[in-house]
Each structure stands twice: as structure tokens, then as C-alpha cells.
């Protein structure tokens, strides 16, 4: 305890904020991130087109289910998954490929602080993109219902659902971010490993309950305010697990991310700069 108290926490905090600020500026405000913006806002564009040009009558509950399906099948299983793969793989591996990681490794910053600050910047960027996309999705979806939509949002369950979806986005970015950050340090090309993770997430529901705990999607499933049953191909993207309380699922996911990050911190201590072999 005494040793912990003696650590230069204020310096580490200052360095972490500085690194996170640099990373957000470098990674979020760049043309190379355009495809992640595309991933985040494709459903928004489709919902907006429907809201503006589709004059046929829809029931509000139907559209609520459509929105739940978009979050469940698109954002969680594809958008956030691949968005986080792009964002978090770039943080360490991308800098090794671009031969610029050594500037950080030659700074007076503990490598663990560097890794966690980069991770925080990645989470901030991913949550900002996907969170704002879902907020705008809600706005377009319920604005087209006029007063009924407004009533559903502010006097009905709409706001609570939005909060739950945002929580799912945050936890999804934390979970997938931690996994992809580690994979990018372990493999020169993390894509095959990411595909294995995608496959694992798909077959996870048929695994024993202990193995189900090693899955980001299975935790997120318990936090969804509305569950849409998967049919046909969507059934492959549907996770059916034993029911778990929301706070247990959130804590479980955070613990999983913490374990993965702790292992990443150990790995980054031994990372070497050998750009010629990258």
C-alpha cells in the first residue's frame, strides 16, 4: 500500500491525458478513419432516408424493434466489432507499421501508462463515433412519429432504452477494444485472429456456461433493453445464454477487459522496435 502511494500518480495522469489527447487528434481527425465513420453512420443514413422519404405508415413498436435489431445485429456484431478492430489495431501495431512507435517508447513514460492512455483514447474515439450514431438514429427514428415519438422518448421507455444502448456501446468498445489491442500486439496481422474471435462469438452460445463468460457479445446480450429473436442468417448473430442480471454482466465484461489489459501491459514491457521485420 505504501509502495502504491509513493508512485508518481499525478505525473502518470498528466502523461496519460497528454497521450490520449495526441491519439484522439491523430486517429479520429484523419481521413484514414473515414471508413470507421462510414461503419458508424451507415444505419443513420438509412434511417434518415426512411424518415425523410418513406411516407408509408409504420407502427412505433415495429420501428422500436427495428432499432433494437440494428443495435443488436449491426452495431454490436459488425459495426463496433470491425470499428474497434480498426481503431485499436492501429494504436500499437499501426504505429509499428508506420515506424513511429519508437517516439513514444523513447519518451519518459512508463509503457503501461502509454498502453492504457492509448486504450482510453481508442475507447473515447469509438464511443464518440458509435454513441453519437445511435443518438442520431434515435432522433431520426422517433422524430418521424411527431408528438407520439416525442412522448415515447421523454415520457415513455425511449430515454431508458437509449441509455441502455449507450451503455452497451461503451462496454462493447471497452471489451472489443481490449481484445483487439492485445491481438494487435501478439500478431503482425491481427485480422485472422479477429476472424477467429468473430467465429468464437458466433458459436459461443452453444458452449458450456463457463466458456460463455469469455465472450464480449454474451455479456452485452444481457444489457440489451429489447431482445430481437434472430431468424435465418440473423440467428448466427444471436446469442442465447443463461439469463444474467445487468450489473453482473457489466461487471463481468469489465473484469474480462481488465484481465486482457493487464496481460497487454505485461506484453508491452517487452516490445522491441524491429521495424525491418514488421
Amino acid at each position, binding site marked *: 500500500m505504501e509502495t502504491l502511494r509513493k508512485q508518481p500518480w499525478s505525473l502518470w495522469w498528466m*502523461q496519460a491525458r497528454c497521450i490520449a489527447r495526441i491519439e484522439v487528434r*491523430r486517429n479520429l481527425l484523419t481521413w484514414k478513419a473515414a471508413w470507421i465513420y462510414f461503419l458508424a453512420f451507415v444505419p443513420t443514413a438509412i434511417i434518415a432516408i426512411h424518415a425523410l422519404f418513406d411516407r408509408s405508415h409504420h407502427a412505433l413498436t415495429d420501428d422500436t424493434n427495428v432499432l433494437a435489431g440494428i443495435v443488436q445485429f449491426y452495431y454490436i456484431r459488425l459495426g463496433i466489432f470491425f470499428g474497434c478492430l480498426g481503431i485499436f489495431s492501429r494504436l500499437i501495431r499501426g504505429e509499428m507499421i508506420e*515506424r513511429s512507435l519508437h517516439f513514444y517508447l*523513447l*519518451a519518459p513514460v512508463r509503457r503501461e501508462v502509454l498502453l492504457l492512455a492509448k486504450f482510453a483514447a481508442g475507447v473515447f474515439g469509438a464511443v464518440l463515433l458509435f454513441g453519437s450514431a445511435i443518438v442520431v438514429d434515435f432522433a431520426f427514428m422517433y422524430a418521424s412519429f411527431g408528438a407520439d415519438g416525442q412522448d415515447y422518448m421523454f415520457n415513455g421507455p425511449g430515454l431508458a432504452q437509449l441509455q441502455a444502448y449507450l451503455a452497451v456501446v461503451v462496454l462493447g468498445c471497452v471489451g472489443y477494444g481490449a481484445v483487439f489491442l492485445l491481438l494487435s500486439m501478439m500478431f503482425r496481422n491481427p485480422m485472422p485472429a479477429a476472424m477467429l474471435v468473430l467465429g468464437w462469438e458466433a458459436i459461443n452460445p452453444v458452449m458450456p456456461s463457463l466458456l460463455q463468460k469469455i465472450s464480449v457479445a454474451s455479456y452485452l446480450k444481457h444489457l440489451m433493453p429489447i431482445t430481437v429473436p434472430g431468424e435465418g442468417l440473423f440467428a448466427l448473430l444471436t446469442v442465447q445464454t443463461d439469463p444474467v442480471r445487468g450489473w453482473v454482466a457489466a461487471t463481468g465484461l469489465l473484469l474480462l477487459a481488465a484481465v486482457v489489459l493487464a496481460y497487454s501491459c505485461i506484453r508491452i514491457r517487452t516490445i*522491441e522496435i524491429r*521495424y525491418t521485420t514488421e
Partner: protein
Amino acid sequence: MTAGDRIVFEDVSKFYGEVLGVNRVSLSLPPGVTTLVGPNGSGKTTLMNLMTGLVQPSSGRISVLGLTPGDPNEFFREVGYCTQFDSFPRGLTGWDFVFDSLLLHGMGSANASKLACEALERVGLMEAARRKIAGYSKGMRQKIRLAQSIAHHPQVLVLDEPLNGLDPMARAESLALFEELSRLGMHLIISSHILDEVDRISDRVVLITGGYLVAEGNIHAVRSEVRDKPMQVLIRCDRPELLASRMFTLNHCVEARLHSDGHGVFLRTTDIDEFYRLLNGIATEGLVNIEAVAPADDDTHAIYQYLIGSEGGAS
């Protein structure tokens, strides 16, 4: 001088898989300018990367002023490394690059700004500081790396090919800067293939080839240890032909060559002590008026050629 003032390698080896980086290197470098000399792939950059923790030794120990890269907060306050990697984080201006690196030291904006200005002015890049690095010439990129490595006033400056890409004027300015930093008591570890220029400011040389340390120490001392190679001496005098003929009769004098201006002669000898004794004798005879005597091949370039030259080009 204690280990706390020195850069110390203790029996350090580095293997990249089965490929040898450096093998059983032991060094103890005092302050001043140390030049690393060796062919391409000889292990110079590996030594520098080991020193700064970019790669970890397979065996042995390294300390820089008693510090190790395992404690980066302390270590990198004292060490600056100007690498030869010609790549930068995307989208940065020269100013961002230097300023951001200073913020990582935990400095406030005002202090970081002051030090960034000072470093950029020192390398003559203040005017271009607000431009994106992506638009810099090779020489400017070299300078901005140098600025970043000296901005925090380190005690140890590691420079991997710091003169690459610089025009003659910028080279002269950089060398003057290195000399100035050396006079302030800093350690400068330089690898450069522009040996003639670096030689002027070097206090000692480390020769390395194939990952093995070949020689190390003061340039003149290293040269005198290379006894199997005849030493070359330039003698400035009024009658070089006469001096050459007298000296060439000695059996340890193996080569004589007149200087192109006709006012001197280069002589090679296998016994330098006997050579100087006989030269004194000739001078006292009064037949030849000797103006100056100077070793002509105890520079880094000559030592490199003698010890390593046959194995590859200079790097």
C-alpha cells in the same frame, strides 16, 4: 569517475532469433564524443537501441549514468535519441512533434513552449516549425529529429547517422552544436559514415564489425595499437626529395610519397619510435629544414580502413 557518470555495457549480447546483433560487448564510456564505426549491419544501431531500451539484451547488463530504461521516467529525462528511422507520427507539424514530446515529460505548456522554441532555433528550423513534417525535405526531417532529441536538455545524446541528408552548411552547424554540447560535459554517442567530419570532434572511437567489438578508445591510442600496419607521417620541409631518399634507406621505412605541393613528403614506417629518433638526427644535421611533422593516418577513417575496411564499405 564512477559508473554513475558513464555508459556501461557489461558483456552484452543480442540475438534476433538466430541472427547475431552484437556479441559479448563490454564498454565503459566517459563523457565526450564517442563515434561508433563499422560497416552496414555491424551492430552500431543495435548498440544504440540496446542503450535506449528499444531492444532488450539477450544477456548482459547496460546502464546509462547508473540508470536503465526500465525506469523510463528517470532514464529519458537524461537521454535523448535521434534515431535514423525517417518516419514520423502522421499529420504533425514540426512544432507539434517537439512540443508534444516535451509535454510527455510532465512539463507545463509554458515551459514546453520555451524549450521547443530554444531547440528549434538551435537547429535553425523555427521558421518551418508550423509546417507539416510530411512536407519537409530529408535534411529538415533530420533537423527536427535532432531538435526533439535535445529539447529536454539531456545529459546523454545518442545520434544515429545524424549528418545524413544534411547539406555542407547544415553539417558544419550540427558538428558545431555537437562540439558545444560535448564541451558542456554531455555524452554524445554518434554513428556516422561521414568519418572525416565526425573525426574532428571525436574523443574516442568504438570499432565494431559483425557484431563484435574490434577496438575501442582514444583514436591515437587505437591507431598505435594497430602495430601490424605501417604508420604514415607527413613531414613538411624545404627539401622533401632529399629527406625521402635519406629516410627510405632505412629498412623500417616502407613507403615514401611526395606531397602534391612539393613542400612535404608522406613516409610510412613499421617502427615509429626509431623513425622519430632518426628524423631528429637528420634535422640536427641541418641538411633539411623541417617545418612540421604530423601523423597522417591516425584518424578514424584510417583506423577503419586498417581494421575493418576489407570487410565492407564504411557505414
